[in-house]
């Protein structure tokens, strides 16, 4: 809530004050107090569930809105002037009339604010009145109430596919395993399910829920906005305590899935729920133009001051020339004449009033309107629409459209941004033997080879529903399994089908299907130990949730078809979008990481395997083996073996998805995962049910995850671990003691394979295993339990306990996963660089992988000199920096011909051929105070910079460093939670809505779905928005200054007496009506160069980077004619006509409409106003004028004379020194075939146009 009314504030303050009694909240059941009065309620001090996000009430709207509006300087200024007008000494106009413009602007803004507030109110009402089930003691059952009736301490039941009305501590679920699934799409847009489990100890599974017997006290922390952290315990009357965490809390706004019925006690309600506390107001960034404009407004103020000063002095001097008072000098009401100096002072104030329109009050309003229009057109662009995801480009930040046209530095994340983040299992090495999976590679190569056009046509075909019934698809895939030589067409079909169906949980057949390596398959059939272990760890060491096809169907139908829930769902979604749930909103999936590193939530490395989101099982006390085994057997009875294919995996990271499918390809299929058990089907159709003893979730410090299970056959306790190679390799069994030679060899060989994988740009993961003895486990388990139940420093203690057991691994093997480049990435990067942007890659990946990707996306060239900085010592770092910098300087100096290369058109920017690769630890050294300047200078000389192994915090530091040191416009693009910092630090943040959830999108200014869209967004829309807005702002200043000049110069002819020769009403109309629409239309719709030209000539973008369009003003050539509104109207409008680059119907309509409106309004006004507006009373003046041929002659002459210099200037410039844009426009006139040929030949614009 950005703003609440004072009453609420006071109320909040009061409530908070009471809350500060302790850092904890105690909640007891409301049921025993059901009939008591408000003040006897035990939970009365906690907020109710009704929400109110509207700022105003009906009665307080006007004063509060005015109060708020007068926080703006401009409004105060104009109001001050209007008030000044009431002083008789200085008034320039009729005081009442002078109030009109400011009132109009205030009223317009108020209407807008009021409307928005009303919309908020409606949304609130809709939410508050949504139905829910609350337990009533009287009726001894759940009754339907509304959301706003929910109070803390109530028992609420939520059915499947219903939205959770408040933050509820889960006490009961109909699920036999005591879990329930929650979809958080409303909060973070993620469609994957989160598992929540019942707080043990109160409700027994399988029995009806009986809230009336609830006699415990819920003790938990005070409301906070951390969605991933929740601590507390349940205190029984006998002082027994049961701890709980975030995995027992159902969050308001989420939806219950896959579980028929859940119930619990409300702990936070209304504004105190976690989701509400995460709402922050819409993002407010100020664009560069706007900042510059403010200085220009200041310049206007100075100009105004001088004009007024001149008038004041002039008036004083003029008065001094008279010996006696002439009859036209009117004394004041007492008949006394004002002394000339005093009169001069008054004149100063009067002139300010008269010339006030110099400060363009309507400019801000117009800019807002223009940006709205620009955003409308951006979102409407069909080229930026993604068919697969059914998503348009989203503009989340409303006021920085033109910044898109001024970007100089692009910082890009690698995974998911440049690459698809659709992981494909490529190869693996087991026990030192490498399996290349050549067939699989061949298959992928075929898929890669298809071109886009085919894809499009195929996509359209798939819109016909019966083309791909599931069975047929199944067939295709089965064929894939059996016969690797599947025709390309077939594969394309399956890919297209997958694309058409959306992005559900990384399970499109293309990426997940793995063709097994026959050699390895053979080994597997022999079932030798390490191979079994390797695939078992692939299959179970993860957090993948198995969902049945039925539950998936429910999900989809629930959203699309169920009318009730879909409407409430959409309203909820809409509501959240308006509030833009953001802040430090790492989604649920990072819950575990945040548990451990609360102070620094972004130290996350997405490029390492995402192994997280383990349903925590640690504090479970009861097991229910019965249920599970029964379920499994029933499954087995019902389905033939082939049916197990129906298993659907919902992985939170694409790596896991790729791995589990790889395991499946070799016959190791995970068929069920509950908090306590994992069931895997082996190739020989035997089901193995592992009891899960402990899960050590992934975090970015340890960079690994482990699962401890009890083997069903041997009863051994086994820990499977997977993680980054560095995290595993250093913790292998001690080399010198009991490690056999063979083990050692395996380690060396595996390391060699890993290096090879990294060079190929594959993501590597190591797998290891450890057998734990019972005693060791028991000892460790105690430590673990203690850590889990602690409240202070829980994170550190948990990590310590994990480190404690994760050692002495025996290596099983490693996998290489490919993350393929997105389509058109090299082209886009090329285009961005031709447009003069520096592209940096900031990644958490290994240097080798990053370099590989950089080559493949053409960020680095084969001829480039790649300098790698990886060192641990600062002195070395310093030395290398100096060396490289010296070399870079030299090469820039001695290679002027290189400088000239490729710059015939693009200007004189140096294109050095140095690529800089720097890793995280070196980066932090280079960014230390003493080296930072050298580092920045070196970066300036580099063609490409790759930062590897950087933390999210470092990412944002780099962006900030470049932004502040070089004073450039920066853009950051990323897709994951680890990019959030960077996105927020840059001038423009772009989120890629892809595989990694929506955190980046929530934090960004613009959200796109593909990296290639960035090219169009910047080069076309950015350029358009920028040049449009810049031109409009200039024009606005021109318009106002020109008009004010009319008034000002007239003062020389009227004794500096501040006479306005134009009727004041007409002056108002002039700004508000006659000349407002054309510039706005100009700002929204003018198009200098077409999009195709802009795309094919990225050099055109450079204009915005150096702020060429908007640099100073071109005012002053305006020759001053007869002081007449009409002429100035014609002049001003026709001036715009010179500037307009393309005339569409809309342009014609607005321009002609404005002129026509002027004449109609003026004629009507002067026909009606006989004595309505003294002293000017323009009765019949216009008609008289228009009957006089001289009027037209003068109008034409003056307009032509006034515009002639500008026009000639344009023409001469266009002929003698045409700008690149003009050339581009000329190019557009050429026949397309000719144009294409030229473009293909790679000639610059200059040659092309010159020879045309």
């Amino acid at each position, binding site marked *: 809530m950005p703003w609440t009314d004072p009453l609420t504030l006071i109320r909040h303050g009061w409530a908070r004050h009471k809350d500060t009694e302790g850092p904890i909240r105690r909640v007891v059941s409301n049921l025993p107090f059901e009939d008591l009065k408000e003040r006897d309620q035990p939970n009365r001090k906690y907020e109710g569930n009704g929400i109110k996000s509207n700022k105003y009430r009906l009665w307080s709207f006007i004063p509060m809105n005015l109060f708020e509006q007068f926080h703006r300087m401009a409004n105060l200024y104009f109001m001050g002037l209007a008030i000044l007008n009431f002083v008789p000494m200085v008034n320039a106009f009729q005081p009442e009339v002078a109030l009109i413009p400011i009132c109009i602007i205030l009223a317009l803004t108020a209407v807008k604010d009021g409307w928005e507030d009303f919309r908020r109110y409606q949304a609130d009402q809709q939410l508050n009145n949504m139905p829910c089930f609350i337990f009533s003691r009287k009726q001894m059952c759940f009754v339907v109430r509304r959301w706003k009736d929910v109070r803390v301490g109530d028992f609420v039941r939520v059915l499947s596919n219903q939205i959770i009305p408040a933050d509820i501590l889960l006490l009961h679920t109909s699920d036999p395993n005591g879990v329930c699934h929650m979809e958080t799409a409303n909060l973070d847009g993620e469609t994957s399910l989160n598992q929540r489990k019942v707080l043990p100890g109160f409700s027994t599974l399988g029995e009806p829920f009986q809230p009336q017997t609830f006699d415990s006290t819920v003790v938990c922390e005070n409301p906070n906005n951390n969605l991933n952290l929740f601590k507390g315990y349940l205190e029984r009357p006998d002082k027994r305590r049961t701890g709980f965490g975030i995995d027992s809390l159902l969050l308001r706004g989420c939806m219950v899935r896959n579980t028929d019925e859940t119930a619990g006690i409300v702990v936070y309600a209304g504004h105190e729920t976690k989701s509400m506390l995460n709402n922050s107001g819409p993002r407010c960034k100020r664009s560069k133009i706007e900042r510059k404009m403010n200085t220009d407004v200041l310049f206007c103020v100075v100009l105004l001051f001088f004009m007024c000063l001149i008038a004041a002095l002039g008036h004083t001097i003029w008065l001094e020339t008279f010996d006696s008072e002439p009859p036209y000098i009117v004394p004041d009401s007492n008949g006394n004449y004002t002394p000339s100096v005093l009169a001069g002072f008054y004149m100063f104030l009067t002139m300010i009033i008269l010339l006030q329109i110099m400060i363009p009050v309507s400019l801000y309003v117009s800019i807002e309107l223009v940006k709205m229009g620009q955003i409308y057109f951006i979102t409407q662009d069909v080229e930026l629409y993604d068919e697969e995801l059914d998503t348009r480009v989203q503009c989340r930040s409303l006021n920085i459209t033109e910044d898109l046209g001024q970007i100089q530095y692009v910082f890009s994340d690698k995974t998911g941004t440049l690459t698809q983040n659709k992981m494909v299992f490529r190869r693996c090495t087991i026990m030192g033997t490498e399996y290349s999976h050549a067939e699989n590679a061949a298959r992928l190569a075929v898929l890669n080879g298809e071109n886009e056009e085919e894809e499009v046509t195929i996509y359209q075909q798939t819109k016909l529903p019966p083309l791909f019934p599931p069975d047929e698809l199944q067939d295709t895939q089965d064929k894939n399994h059996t016969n690797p030589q599947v025709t390309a067409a077939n594969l394309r079909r399956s890919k297209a089908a997958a694309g058409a169906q959306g992005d559900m949980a990384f399970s499109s057949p293309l990426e997940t299907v793995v063709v097994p390596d026959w050699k390895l398959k053979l080994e597997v059939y022999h079932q030798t130990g390490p191979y079994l272990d390797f695939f078992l760890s692939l299959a179970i060491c993860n957090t993948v949730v198995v969902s049945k096809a039925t539950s998936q169907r429910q999900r989809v139908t629930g959203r699309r078809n169920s009318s009730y829930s879909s409407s409430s769902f959409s309203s909820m979604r809409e509501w959240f979008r308006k509030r833009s749930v953001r802040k430090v909103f790492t989604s649920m999936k990072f819950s575990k990481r945040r548990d451990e590193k609360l102070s620094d939530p972004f130290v996350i490395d997405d490029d390492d395997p995402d192994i997280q989101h383990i349903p925590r099982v640690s504090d479970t006390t009861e097991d229910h083996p019965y249920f599970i085994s029964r379920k499994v057997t029933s499954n087995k009875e019902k389905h033939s073996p082939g049916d197990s294919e129906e298993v659907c995996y919902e992985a939170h990271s694409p790596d896991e998805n790729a791995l589990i499918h790889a395991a499946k390809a070799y016959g190791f299929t995970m068929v069920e995962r509950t908090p306590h058990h994992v069931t895997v089907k082996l190739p020989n159709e035997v089901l193995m049910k592992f009891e899960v003893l402990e899960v050590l979730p992934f975090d970015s410090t340890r960079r690994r995850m482990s699962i401890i299970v009890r083997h069903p056959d041997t009863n051994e306790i086994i820990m499977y671990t997977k993680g980054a190679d560095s995290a595993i390799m250093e913790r292998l069994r001690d080399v010198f003691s009991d490690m056999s030679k063979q083990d050692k060899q395996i380690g060396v060989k595996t390391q060699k394979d890993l290096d090879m994988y990294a060079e190929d740009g594959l993501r590597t993961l190591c797998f290891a295993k450890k057998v734990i003895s019972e005693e060791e486990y028991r000892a460790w388990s105690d430590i673990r339990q203690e850590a889990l139940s602690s409240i202070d420093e829980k994170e550190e203690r948990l990590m310590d306990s994990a480190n404690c057991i994760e050692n002495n691994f025996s290596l099983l093997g490693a996998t290489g996963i490919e993350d393929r480049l997105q389509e058109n990435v090299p082209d886009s990067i090329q285009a961005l660089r031709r447009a003069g942007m520096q592209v940096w890659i900031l990644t958490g990946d290994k240097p080798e992988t990053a370099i590989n990707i950089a080559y493949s996306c053409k960020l680095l060239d084969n001829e480039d000199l790649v300098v790698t900085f990886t060192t641990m010592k600062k002195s070395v770092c310093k030395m290398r920096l100096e060396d490289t910098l010296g070399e870079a300087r030299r090469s820039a100096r001695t290679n002027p011909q290189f400088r000239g290369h490729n710059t015939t058109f693009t200007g004189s920017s140096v294109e050095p051929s140095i690529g800089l690769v720097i890793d995280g630890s070196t980066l932090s050294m280079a960014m230390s105070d003493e080296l930072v300047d050298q580092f920045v200078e070196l970066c300036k000389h580099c063609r490409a910079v790759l930062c590897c192994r950087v933390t999210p915090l470092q990412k944002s530091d780099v962006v900030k460093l470049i932004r502040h040191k070089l004073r450039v416009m920066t853009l950051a693009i990323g897709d994951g939670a680890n990019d959030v910092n960077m996105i927020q630090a840059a001038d423009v943040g772009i989120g890629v809505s892809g595989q990694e959830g929506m955190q980046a999108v929530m934090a960004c200014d613009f959200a796109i779905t593909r990296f290639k869209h960035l090219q169009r967004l910047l080069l076309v829309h950015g350029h358009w928005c920028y040049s449009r807005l810049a031109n409009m702002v200039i024009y606005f200043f021109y318009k106002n200054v020109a008009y004010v000049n009319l008034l000002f110069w007239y003062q020389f002819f009227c004794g500096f007496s501040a006479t306005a020769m134009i009727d004041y009403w007409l002056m108002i109309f002039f700004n508000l009506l006659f000349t407002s629409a054309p510039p706005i239309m100009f700002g929204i719709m003018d*198009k200098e160069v077409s999009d195709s030209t802009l795309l094919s000539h990225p050099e055109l973008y450079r204009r915005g980077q150096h702020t060429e369009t908007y640099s100073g003003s071109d005012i002053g050539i305006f020759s001053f004619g007869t002081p007449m509104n009409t002429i100035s109207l014609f002049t001003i409008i026709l001036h715009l006509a010179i500037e307009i680059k393309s005339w569409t119907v809309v342009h014609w309509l607005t321009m002609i409409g404005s002129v026509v409106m002027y004449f109609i309004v003026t004629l009507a006004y002067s026909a009606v106003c006989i004595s309505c507006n003294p002293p000017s009373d323009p009765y019949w003046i216009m008609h008289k004028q228009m009957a006089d041929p001289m009027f037209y002659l003068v109008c034409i002459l003056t307009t032509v004379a006034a515009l002639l210099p500008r026009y000639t200037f344009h023409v001469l410039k266009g002929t003698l020194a045409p700008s690149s844009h003009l050339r581009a426009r000329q190019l557009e006139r050429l026949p397309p075939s000719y144009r294409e040929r030229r473009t293909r030949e790679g000639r610059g614009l200059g040659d092309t146009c010159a020879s045309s």
Partner: protein
Amino acid sequence: MMASSYSAKEEDGHHPGSAGLGDTAIRTRKPDNTAFKQQRLPAWQPILTAGTVLPAFFVIGLIFIPIGIGLYVTSNNIKEFEIDYTGTDMSSPCFNCSINHSWNNTTPCKCVLPFSLDQPFESNVFMYYGLSNFYQNHRRYVKSRDDSQLNGDEGSLKEPSKECEPYHTSEKKPIAPCGAIANSMFNDTLELYFIDPNGTRNQIPLTKKGIAWWTDKHVKFRNPGSNNPNLTAVFQDTAKPINWGKPVYELDTDLENNGFINEDFIVWMRTAALPTFRKLYRIIQKKNSMTPTLPRGNYTLEVTYIHFLNHLYSDYPVRSFDGRKRVILSTISWMGGKNPFLGIAYITVGLICFFLGVVLLFIHHKYGNRNNSSDIPN
């Protein structure tokens, strides 16, 4: 692969909520591919280069120069004669009147200025008085009037607007017409005599009607008392403006030209935009087609000064601010009075355009098609 079978599964209607709705067309969020939304409206994109705008310059030049010549010729055909009668010179016949006329006797001061016309004035002649350095456009002066009073509003007649201050009451009575503009109304009387070759003085008849705008006389200005012919009664409770010698209802004897609708008054009330201005005083109608309105010969202008009260100087006071008083005789054409500037301006602009056209032609010829433009910086 499960993901790929959504749409099929969706239609089998297992979920109760989906029944009946299953076959609704799936709406995509794909933007409409219309010319407007995709910013592909057909557009005319003028490119300003020498080659493209050449014709425009020539056309403007070719249009403007004839217009300018026409205007100039018309303006030259207008005959205009101007005589200054301020009387600042000792030699000027009006010197005495303007300086030291004694107002002790009630006879108004008169001065006679002889002049001669070299050319006859053929059509109707408009007689103007001109004042210079008179800032009728001073902000507070412009405001100092009450339009509703002048429009015949009874209430405003009794209580003039505050804008008229300090000229809104005199001796506890409201001033009609109030305000500084009315108060400073020009009141010299000008008469024109033709001196026959034989020496006789013939007074030239001056028409005093039709000098104001029709709409001003009939709509904007109206006497109070709804056409009561007895203006004396209508204005009985009002005072005359301080500087005036006689009340408003004695401006003329003709009822159609008396009170607020006196045309001299109306003309004066339309304040001039610039400090040097002329206002129409009388019209000399052409008598017949045979004789010119003002034949060649000698004339005299007789100026009668009327006491401008409460003022140091006797006549209509312009000397305090270095003003000048002039009488202008002029014929008019469709373009109004003599105005050579407009014609010259048109010719000049036309010539400039033409000249620029030639320059552009040259430039176009020389640079428009050049082949090497790589040296041009961006």
